[in-house]
């Protein structure tokens, strides 16, 4: 199992589990796909590299204002008024650059983050720091996975953000530990993860159990009908109790994943 991801619903204890596994395996490579806050204390930064995204840049001296770019932008990222390009909408596809009859547009690379290689004891730890409010989380998770892959096997901790980011986070993973809680969202997430990582082995951890019996029964039924293994089942408990309970779950996981 070279590439292992931990995904799931919020407040399910997935990061505590991530830490529990790392504690048992001091040399296992780790990656964290939360990019907004600075690197935690305790990690020793070895290398920082700029991370860039392609963005179109307009040369207004050459632009004839024909607005072909604006009309053909598939993402509606160009404003009609002054042909201003909204970088929160632009996907950097380059269609406008290709279509512009005056060659007034060019793709440039804009730095949106720093890729960080760090050390935690004997372990390699891959992270990134996104510039405040910048886009690029799907591309960033792809990039840190590419780096962590060189030090595989690795364990990737994912936030509870399930947009297109999840596609880039799970594509090609070998094993996904999916944390679910008895909530309606558990069903579509289970379906989506099985779909996004079709070749991955899927292990489910049920957390905060004993809080919603109807959903729990339906969820267990759904999991077993899909032939998915349940790695652990934990009642609603405090963070401290959860840490203790994950000792066992983490050991079981390491044996199953052969890590």
């Amino acid at each position, binding site marked *: 199992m070279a590439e292992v991801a931990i995904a799931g619903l*919020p407040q399910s204890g997935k990061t505590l589990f991530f830490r529990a596994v790392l504690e048992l395996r001091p040399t296992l490579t780790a990656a964290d796909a939360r990019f907004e806050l600075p690197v935690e204390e305790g990690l020793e930064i070895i290398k920082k590299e700029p991370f860039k995204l392609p963005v179109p840049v307009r040369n207004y001296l050459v632009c004839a204002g024909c607005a072909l770019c604006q009309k053909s932008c598939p993402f509606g990222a160009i404003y009609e008024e002054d042909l201003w390009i909204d970088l*929160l909408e632009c996907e950097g*596809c380059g*269609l406008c650059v290709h*279509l512009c009859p005056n060659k007034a547009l060019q793709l440039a690379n804009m730095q949106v983050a720093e890729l960080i290689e760090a050390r935690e004891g004997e372990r390699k730890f891959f992270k990134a720091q*996104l510039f405040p409010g910048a886009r*690029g989380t799907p591309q960033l998770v792809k990039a840190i996975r590419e780096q962590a892959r060189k030090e595989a096997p690795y364990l990737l901790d994912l936030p509870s953000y*399930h947009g297109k980011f*999840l596609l880039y986070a799970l594509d090609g993973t070998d094993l996904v530990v999916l944390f679910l809680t008895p909530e309606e969202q558990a069903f*579509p997430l289970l379906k989506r993860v099985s779909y996004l990582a079709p070749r991955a082995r899927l292990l489910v951890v049920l957390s905060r159990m004993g809080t919603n019996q109807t959903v729990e029964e339906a969820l267990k039924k759904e999991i077993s009908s899909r032939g998915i293994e349940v790695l652990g089942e934990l009642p609603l408990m405090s963070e401290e109790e959860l840490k203790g309970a994950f000792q066992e779950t983490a050991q079981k996981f390491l044996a199953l994943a052969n890590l």
Partner: protein
Amino acid sequence: MIIGLLSLRGGVGRSVLSRALAQKFSAPVYELEVGLPKLWPAEEKEKEVVWGRLSRFKREKCDLCGDCVKQCQFGALSLEGETIKHRGPFCHGCGLCKEICPKKAIELKEYQVGEIVYGTTDGIELFAGRLLRRTPLEGTVIKKLKERFPLPSRAILKAPCGLHGEALSGLKEAEALILVTQPWDRLTEEIKLFGELTQGLGLGGMVIVNQVREEVSVASWCTAYGLFYAGEIPYLPGFQGDLLKAWPEGEAFWDRVRQHLEGGK
């Protein structure tokens, strides 16, 4: 006033807060977490399919020149041995490959990529969207939601989890941003980042700390970063759903929130 509701981490109370704010301000909620919507109306009044363009690759016309592979920014096309691999889920439907293919081996086709819905839950008006296929077209679903159900003058925009550009991109219409969070060891760093974001966007920002067991002293941090600290919501054991009912002592808190948001305009 259009309010954008954000949180760095999931599960801190964005859904609960959005419902409470909707009740307090008689405003609808727009659920923008289309990857995995938490809010979905119990009673659906209108529903519509969202169509999106995606590329379709016709192998029989392809002569393996590889131009499309070089140009695709999304890795949706790759040259593998004697064949081009079309990785549908990564296609953003931009159509650049179609434009440059000398053999016209790629076409764009409309697919059902999502659905949008309008309805109510406990008297709250909800507009929500959901991605249906394995596509990255979150933005298409959000745009369609706002186009089909235009934002009224008061609305709560509930962003997906995170303080990154992807979460912010649906909040363009917001006139003020609210950060919902809970006590944790990086709370001050979170507030600092939120302060930088609101300043960068030129918007007013408000911080609400939810599920507080022991008093947190972040008011001065908020002030230092130009943010308004609305106060804390106590930890309510066994709480589910309706915050206004579960926390009747919250009147002063809600008055403060209202005064700040309405007084500012």
